[in-house]
């Protein structure tokens, strides 16, 4: 009793330390910003305030790029929109102070625009890569053209001038405090979010978006939400810019400014909110000082930038972090109190699966040539067949990785042909990939958490600390069946051996408690002993969940041990189906396996 009390107190102290740790960057920043006008002077504070404003927008860019892995090349658009809208509001508020309330929509509208655009873009294509960057770039250029053309609205080339400060604040003295407070606030907010489940999810999306989709996470919505947040930061910065400068010109919406955000994020550290902010302040401020003394300061900036990209991907913040490469997300959430997770929302029956003459042709190769089979009820079925028979492709076509060119697939009485992976997963499907697909830079504990959260984490729960400690009985059982996982909970998953990674991925596949498992060669690369244990675990898990499973396997001994129905695939269609002994005496099957039939 006493010892558990002590343990509780230790845990509580650990939690307080944990809470403190997530806020130390913001606290350090606050201290520095308070000291600045005292140790320096108001003029210095005024100058630094401009770069703090840029830094807030840079934090938005760093959020998307450093955390989620896609690079917005056009954040100037939202910065400029926020600036122009706030400029209008501030000018109106000089006559009528009630207009100050307009600052809220001034900042929210650009964020909303960003969110809508991102929803449209990400829903279309999983590849959020450089094409997304080019789209944001083109949009900013359009905005720049509009800002110059529509001079009735924006003042055109000469800009929107005579913008007053918000009433009560004075541009050269007290406005600094507002800007500093906002900068500390955004740093604290981002630092906190990173340590909450949403931060882990963001990191996971950057590392392996396919896997996230297979868990049922609508990654396009998550990315769009993050992009909207980053645009909100940019628009907020733009509003502060309008108040600070008193004039907004099309330069505030330009491609050049957008690339400066990217450069500052790269140099300061794109994975660290404080790093991104300081990148803008230090590099921006240094540039403005250097500019007066060096004619070719830009050559220096260019060289610095090249050096950072080549040798310091985490920027200057990466230099100071004692974090190993494998801890993209702080792993201190081990100290969160363990609680029982809410029940999984996946459906509790095995969804019936039916392939109806499914065809798939790609680049002249016929991958699936009229595949038809069905599956009802719990139990493990094996799928066997020579290489190129279309086994993995059948899984791919089910989970949205391969487009079907003909036929229909039904799952749980719904036509799921062409559905994206996450929608299929939400019907209670779990898939384990041929090459173990985990989140290499997250720890094993974090990998498992992401799996536990799948189908359980909703809305605001992603912002709370509690889900870090969710436990389920199935998770406990996985830890027992795979003791090597419980020994390496704090190692990055990328450092695991092949065997351990297969174990981890299998554990992750079952933790959302799906009722139809698609297992693609789970024993690939395992020793005979490991294979035996894996088959054992699979059987127990399937029984425990009451699930149905399709297991692609080459090892006929393992297939025999499963004692379920077997489907034989050949050249993209179903050749035979039934218990293994029947198939072993089926002449067609024997021809295929003996090589007599092509």
């Amino acid at each position, binding site marked *: 009793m006493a010892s558990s009390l002590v343990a509780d107190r230790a845990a509580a102290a650990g939690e307080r330390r944990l809470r403190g740790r997530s806020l130390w960057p913001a606290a350090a920043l606050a201290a520095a910003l308070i000291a600045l006008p005292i140790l320096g002077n108001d003029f210095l504070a005024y100058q630094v305030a401009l770069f703090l404003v840029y830094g807030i927008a840079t934090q938005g860019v760093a959020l998307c790029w450093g955390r989620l892995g896609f690079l917005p090349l056009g954040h100037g658009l939202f910065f400029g929109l926020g600036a122009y809208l706030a400029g209008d509001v501030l000018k109106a508020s000089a006559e009528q102070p009630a207009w100050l309330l307009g600052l809220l929509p001034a900042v929210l509208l650009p964020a909303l625009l960003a969110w809508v655009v991102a929803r449209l873009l990400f829903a279309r294509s999983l590849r959020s890569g450089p094409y997304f960057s080019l789209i944001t770039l083109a949009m900013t250029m359009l905005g720049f053209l509009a800002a110059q053309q529509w*001079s009735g609205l924006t003042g055109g080339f000469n*800009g929107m001038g005579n913008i007053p400060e918000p009433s009560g604040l004075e541009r050269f*003295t007290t406005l600094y405090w507002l800007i500093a407070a906002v900068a500390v606030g955004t740093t604290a907010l981002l630092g906190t979010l990173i340590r909450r489940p949403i931060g882990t999810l963001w990191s996971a999306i950057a590392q392996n978006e396919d896997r996230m989709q297979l868990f049922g996470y609508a990654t396009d919505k998550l990315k769009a939400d993050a992009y909207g947040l980053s645009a909100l930061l940019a628009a907020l910065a733009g509003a502060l810019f309008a108040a600070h*400068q008193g*004039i907004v010109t099309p330069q*505030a919406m330009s491609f050049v400014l957008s690339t400066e955000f990217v450069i500052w994020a790269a140099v300061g550290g794109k994975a660290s909110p404080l790093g991104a902010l300081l990148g803008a302040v230090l590099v921006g401020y240094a540039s403005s000082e250097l500019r007066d003394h060096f004619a070719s300061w830009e050559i220096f900036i260019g060289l610095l930038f090249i050096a950072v990209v080549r040798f310091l991907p985490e920027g200057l913040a990466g230099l100071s972090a004692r974090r190993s490469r494998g801890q993209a997300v702080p792993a201190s959430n081990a100290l969160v109190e363990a609680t029982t997770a809410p029940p999984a929302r996946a459906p509790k029956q095995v969804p019936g699966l039916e392939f109806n003459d499914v065809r798939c042709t790609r680049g002249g190769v016929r991958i699936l040539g009229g595949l038809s089979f069905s599956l009802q009820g719990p139990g493990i079925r094996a799928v066997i067949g020579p290489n190129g028979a279309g086994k993995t492709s059948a899984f791919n076509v089910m989970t949205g990785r391969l487009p079907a060119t003909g036929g229909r697939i039904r799952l749980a009485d719904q036509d799921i042909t062409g559905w994206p992976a996450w929608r299929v997963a939400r019907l209670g499907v779990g898939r384990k990939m041929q090459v173990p697909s985990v989140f290499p830079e997250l720890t094993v504990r974090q990998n498992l958490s992401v799996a536990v959260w799948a189908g359980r984490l909703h809305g605001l729960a992603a912002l709370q600390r509690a889900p870090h400690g969710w436990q389920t009985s199935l998770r406990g059982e996985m830890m027992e069946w795979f003791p090597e996982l419980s020994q390496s909970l704090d190692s990055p998953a990328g450092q695991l051996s092949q065997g351990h990674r297969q174990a981890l991925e299998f554990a992750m596949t079952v933790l959302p408690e799906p009722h139809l498992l698609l297992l693609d060669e789970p024993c690939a690369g395992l020793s005979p002993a490991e294979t035996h244990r894996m088959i054992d675990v699979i059987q127990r898990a399937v029984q425990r969940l009451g699930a149905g499973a399709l297991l692609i396997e080459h090892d006929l001994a393992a297939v025999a041990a499963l004692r379920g129905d077997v489907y034989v695939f050949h050249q993209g269609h179903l050749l035979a189906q039934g218990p293994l002994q029947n198939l072993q005496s089926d002449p067609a099957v024997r021809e295929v396996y003996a090589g007599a039939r092509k």
Partner: protein
Amino acid sequence: MDRRLLIQSAAAAATLGAWPLARAAGTTKVAVMIPQSGPAGLFGPSAKACAELAAETINARGGLLGQKIELLFGDAGLAPAEASQAVLKLWKGSGATAVIGMHDSAVRGALVGLFKGQVPYFYTPVYEGGECAKGTYVNGETPQQQLQPVIPWIASERKPKKWYMIGNDYIWGRNTNAAAKGYIEKTGAQVVGDEYLPFTVDNFDASLARIRDSGADAVLVSLVGGASVGFNKAFASFGLADKALRLGTLIEENTLAGIGAANAKNLYSSAGYFANVTTPAATAFASAYAKRFGPQAPALNGLAESAYEGFLMMEAIAKKAGSLSAAKLDAACEGASYNGPRGAVTMKARHVEQDVYVADVTDKGFRVVKTFSRVSSGQTCKV
């Protein structure tokens, strides 16, 4: 609104007064804002040279109200936000008591909003007109100044019947063309086209085809920088230089170098200064410049020289007012005058009455073919 402005500026002045000011005894610090980067950056070296020459010349005659001028340079080629920061550093950080600005109108807008009339601000380059802020003194050419005597003269010399106007799509281009329209129609000619292009355009073929189709025999070119270069080169390459004359109000030596003298047949430029002006004052200035900066000096051009004029204007008004305080300068500026490389220059309504030169192009560069004396700026600011 004015009252609020007054309170605001008083408050700003009071708090800014608390900032540390470095003041060396016996010198007056003058902030010089010239473009050292960006699209206008090519004017930086020449403008800087002219500013330095101006300070040395004035210092040689005893300085500004007995005090030696010390120059502080800031980069006005940046975005207006950054340019404001730069000038603030010179004004409040280093104690400049006057500002000479040779930069674009966007930066001017930002600076005017920043200064709020507290520090005398001399804006020197050719621009679109309309600046009437307190404490601002403009000695650049305005469209009215450059066109009002020139268009009728061209009409009498070359008798064009149809004018085509083309300009960059921003306030200077539009204001220039708008002013020109009136003058053109007064000469009895017809305006057959009025077209505006964004800065980024590189290909003028469509516009040139339209110019050819319209049968225009005169073209008003209100393009700047690279657009002017590209347009004029293409114009000549299509053989249009023989079919139509061109008149431009911002074609200075650098732009001409880009266009190439061979492509500048029948091209007229109207400006307050050319490096090749042969008046005694201008030649003296040119040789003083060459002597001071040697054979590798950055090429003299109208925009750079305007910075020199700004210093002369500052000296003239300061002498008349007996002080460099913003209020006293404002009271004394009307009617202040001096003689400089451009000739006799008098301040009227915050702008200047000055001589306007029209030049065409030979293989040696610009050649002044007509001079108009004491042309009014056409602006109506209240002082």
